[in-house]
């Protein structure tokens, strides 16, 4: 067991070290949601605010509304990026080194996933810090309570990335993944508009959104940020995370190839 934890620890440390040395990746992870927050949110017609929906107790500005969605977006990008690198680098490079460690593959995948989630959380907090400078903030409790939600959501999205990359072999580069995975998953969710708003424009869109696990990821982050319990969202995020991971691990078994 000690061996497992040691490996977990060095994998985590390595991710963190890489995160702090790769400034470009960090900056793009930060700029993307900030563009949404500062340019799109203020320019859009939702400037008149969003009506009360749980967990909010009063009307909120659109910036406030999309904050949790943007946090989840960071985790989505981060999860896809690191999961795909896990796949593409399998044959070469550091990933090969990792996979030849004398530990069960699921533990190695899990450790790597968790490590990248921690990095994702750091990105989220950096984003939240910048958002404060522009007047979009949470309560102190919100910043603390959001962490477990971020970790859960990050793991779920990382596992989703693993699964997708092992199912769809055509996902050859990140641009394809952006177009066919990240954008649909992000836009067809409650990240940018509440579900009732989706329903107003199209019933079909509404149903697609309500079947998108990312919607529940966003809502879990949202509820946690406002210190409100969200058992349904939590169950869906945890459930789909476990299912994604088990399926991915199964598909990753070298005996299958």
């Amino acid at each position, binding site marked *: 067991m000690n061996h497992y934890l040691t*490996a977990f620890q060095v994998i985590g440390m390595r991710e963190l070290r890489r995160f702090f040395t790769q400034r470009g990746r960090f900056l793009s992870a930060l700029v993307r949601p900030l563009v949404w927050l500062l340019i799109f949110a203020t320019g859009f017609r939702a400037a008149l605010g969003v009506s009360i929906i749980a967990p909010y107790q009063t009307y909120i500005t659109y910036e406030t509304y999309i904050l949790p969605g943007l946090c989840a977006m960071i985790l989505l990008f981060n999860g896809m990026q690191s999961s795909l690198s896990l796949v593409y680098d399998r044959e070469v*490079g550091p990933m090969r080194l990792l996979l*030849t460690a*004398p530990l069960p593959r699921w533990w190695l995948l899990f450790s790597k996933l968790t490590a990248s989630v921690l990095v994702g959380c750091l990105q989220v907090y950096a984003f939240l810090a910048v958002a404060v400078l522009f007047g979009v903030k949470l309560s102190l409790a919100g910043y603390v309570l959001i962490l477990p939600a971020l970790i859960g959501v990050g793991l779920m999205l990382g596992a989703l990335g693993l699964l997708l990359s092992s199912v769809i072999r055509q996902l050859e580069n990140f641009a394809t993944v952006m177009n066919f995975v990240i954008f649909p998953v992000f836009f067809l969710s409650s990240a940018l508009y509440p579900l009732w708003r989706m329903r107003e424009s199209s019933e079909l869109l509404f149903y697609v959104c309500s079947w998108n696990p990312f919607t529940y990821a966003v809502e879990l982050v949202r509820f946690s940020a406002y210190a409100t319990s969200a058992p349904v969202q939590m169950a869906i995020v945890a459930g789909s995370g476990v299912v994604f991971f088990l399926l991915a691990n199964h598909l990753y078994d070298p005996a299958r190839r």
Partner: protein
Amino acid sequence: MKTALKLDHVSFDYGQKAALKDVSFSVADGTFCALLGPNGAGKSTLFSLLSRLRIPAKGQIDISGRSLLQDPMHGLAGMGIVFQQPTLDLDTTVRQNLIYFAGLHGLRGVDAHHSITRALTRMRMSERADEKVRLLNGGHRRRMEIARALVHNPRILLLDEPTVGLDAQSRKDITDHVHDLVAEGLAVLWATHLVDEIGDHDQVVLLHEGRIIADGPAQTLRGEDRLLDWYLHRTHAENVMP
């Protein structure tokens, strides 16, 4: 001498295309075994199977007498692997790279520190321990990777064309170092297509188009010819034969 590595009727294919056909050979402790073959012969596929990135379609692989398929953890723990492509984190120091690897093998703290120091000493890299990898030249980077593969004190060292892209002096240094390791009792499987890296007393396994076409001490195999002539003749002859 004990058998460190044994392949028994191993076959592998990528879909329709057969990569390895009924491959059998073994390497004993304290032996330098050169896996010789032209590009595309199946050397890299064989390394994938040995490092358990892939699973053979047929056949058995034993590491120190235990099946790699049934007990992969034991097998991987007993192997040190140097991959063809560099697998280094360039922006960290040599020691940090090795600490990461030691961790993957369950070594931490003082144990890890001792193992790393010993491995670096074995490859005469101690004085470079705290340099950033990016600043090392190609030869030193390779030596460092070999040192890393020794951190957990394996019985077998697998090297996949480790001298690719190095200058003549570095190649010679590394080849000599690894031969020294063999003298210490380590079993080495060295994939290459360059015959000048092979000594007369080394074991040669000649792999061609996924088959083993020769296996034995270099001196015995070449007879009166130069090893290079023998190698070219055999791989060329096989090409024209039905």
